[in-house]
């Protein structure tokens, strides 16, 4: 008995965590996916109804707005975060004495909740009080910056706040990537007479493919999950102009009482994330085994 316990103890202590993950992650995903195939409204119903909810979803203008917004937001968010992150990382890599202090400043938004930083941005972007007012007081009487309340442009305010919050993080990822490149290769290029921009463009950046991929994965997955920032900045408005799948799902589940529809939108979200994450995790875990 004692021997048996000793042999199986490792698995026994791992079991509770594993069981929790199986139930609360995989069981719950399965439940949500199943509910998405039923006609559940305020309460779950378990009769199978096929793709009913998905058809309803694709007939809803609000869902299409949410998808379009996700696409626009993700594209701009990833692009700007990568560009700013890479620029800052390269600049910081030039033997800056105060690098530590600068890094701390560029990265502090990541320690804060989107609700906290969103509160600040809501105020800065407020047409009557923030940037618009400040610029008008400088003498540009006709300056207009009312994106926050303009259905057409409100989504871009979320991009601005999102990029501000996350670009420092991307800088940290790129800086780690830059620092892991072998110095010898760069010295050799120097001796061959290559100049600095050329070395970055031709040697350093191409050798950072893995870092780019990591940054992309992290950002794509942050973009799909975006919820807090939208809620605090625009509450999905004006109207539902800045809805994204994450806020759409929440609204359907908790304020509209349309559980089936909410489950269908959540299922679309997890499928999107899986399509990005699974190949990535697979290659990461594989490459580690071969090391």
């Amino acid at each position, binding site marked *: 008995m004692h021997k048996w316990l000793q042999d199986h103890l490792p698995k026994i202590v*791992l079991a509770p965590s594993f069981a929790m993950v199986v139930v609360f992650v995989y069981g719950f995903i399965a439940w949500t996916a199943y509910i998405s195939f039923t006609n559940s409204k305020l309460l779950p119903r378990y009769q199978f109804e096929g793709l009913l909810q998905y058809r309803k979803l694709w007939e809803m203008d609000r869902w299409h707005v949410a998808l379009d917004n996700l696409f626009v937001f993700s594209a701009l968010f990833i692009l700007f975060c990568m560009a700013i992150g890479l620029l800052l990382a390269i600049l910081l890599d030039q033997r800056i004495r105060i690098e530590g202090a600068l890094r701390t400043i560029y*990265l502090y938004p990541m320690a804060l909740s989107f609700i*906290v*930083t969103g509160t600040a941005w809501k105020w800065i972007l407020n047409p009557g*009080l923030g940037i618009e007012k400040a610029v008008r007081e400088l003498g540009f009487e006709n300056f207009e910056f009312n994106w926050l309340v303009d259905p057409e442009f409100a989504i871009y305010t979320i991009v601005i706040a999102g990029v501000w919050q996350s670009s420092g993080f991307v800088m940290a990822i790129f800086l780690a990537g830059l620092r892991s490149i072998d110095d010898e290769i760069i010295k050799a290029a120097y001796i061959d007479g290559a100049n600095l921009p050329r070395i970055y463009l031709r040697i350093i950046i191409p050798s950072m493919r893995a870092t780019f991929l990591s940054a992309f994965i*992290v950002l794509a997955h942050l973009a799909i999950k975006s919820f*807090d920032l939208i809620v605090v900045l625009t509450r999905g408005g004006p109207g539902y102009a800045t809805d994204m799948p994450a806020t759409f799902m929440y609204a359907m589940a908790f304020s509209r009482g349309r559980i089936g529809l909410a489950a269908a939108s959540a299922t679309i979200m997890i499928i999107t994330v899986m399509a990005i994450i699974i190949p990535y995790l697979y290659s*990461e875990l594989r490459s580690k085994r071969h090391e």
Partner: protein
Amino acid sequence: MSEGRFSTAGAAGTRLTISRWLLFLVLGAFVLVYLTPFYVMISTSLKSLDEIRVGSMLAWPETLTVASWAKAWGSACVGIQCDGVKPFFWNSVQITAPAVVISTLLGAINGYVLTKWRFRFDNIVFALILFGCFIPFQVVLLPMARVLGILGLSGSVGGLVLVHIVYGIGFTTLFFRNFYITVPSELVKAATIDGAGFLTIFTKIMLPLSLPIIVVTVIWQFTQIWNDFLFGVSFSAGGGQPITVALNNIVNSSTGVKEYNLDMAAAIIAGLPTLLVYVFAGRYFVRGLTAGSVKG
């Protein structure tokens, strides 16, 4: 490797200085971009409402007042309750403290088993646990709400503790696994030969080595759980809400006069704990951040 690289850049003196200036100009401009919102938050929270209406967003307050800080902490209305953010701050403390401790402990023991007591399919078990880090939580909201209802934990602090433990395990296990994999297995083998068992090796050998990764994990979990909004807004009600939810209620309340200085003071109070941790232990926070992303 040394910080920075091109110390021996042989370019001519003047060109170097100009590019150096340009470098600092760009870096300085970004410093302004990153710090301005924080500056605006602090200065606005210290202004009176009249000064906010008349003055510029960027101006430092002419007369400093901490009235809105006092009000935000002790008497601002969150929904129908007018006790400020204080009770919600303590809710967040009560949610965060147990959830951080328990999820970190579970992560440590999981990481230990997955690296030093390998078994068939352990990689698959790890992959399954790890995937939990990446799911959009919308996909678990509906069943979780029902399960919390069945357990009698709906709208309670206990319910949120459970939720944060469950969905924190993925990251904590990842952190400890990646750390323990660098601890030589010979150490464990030698201890086994000396007669030490599974738990003795964990408490006497592994845990004493783990201080750095414990710090990283605790800071990561603390930041994640304190800053959580989605679970808070989905599974808590009335007086049991965490501070992020209370803050959003203040900021997005549509009744009465909009008190921006109050919003800002409440936001700073809500952000202060994680900001302080970042300022004093930023190194560990960044390590968690990059470990959680780069080494998936």
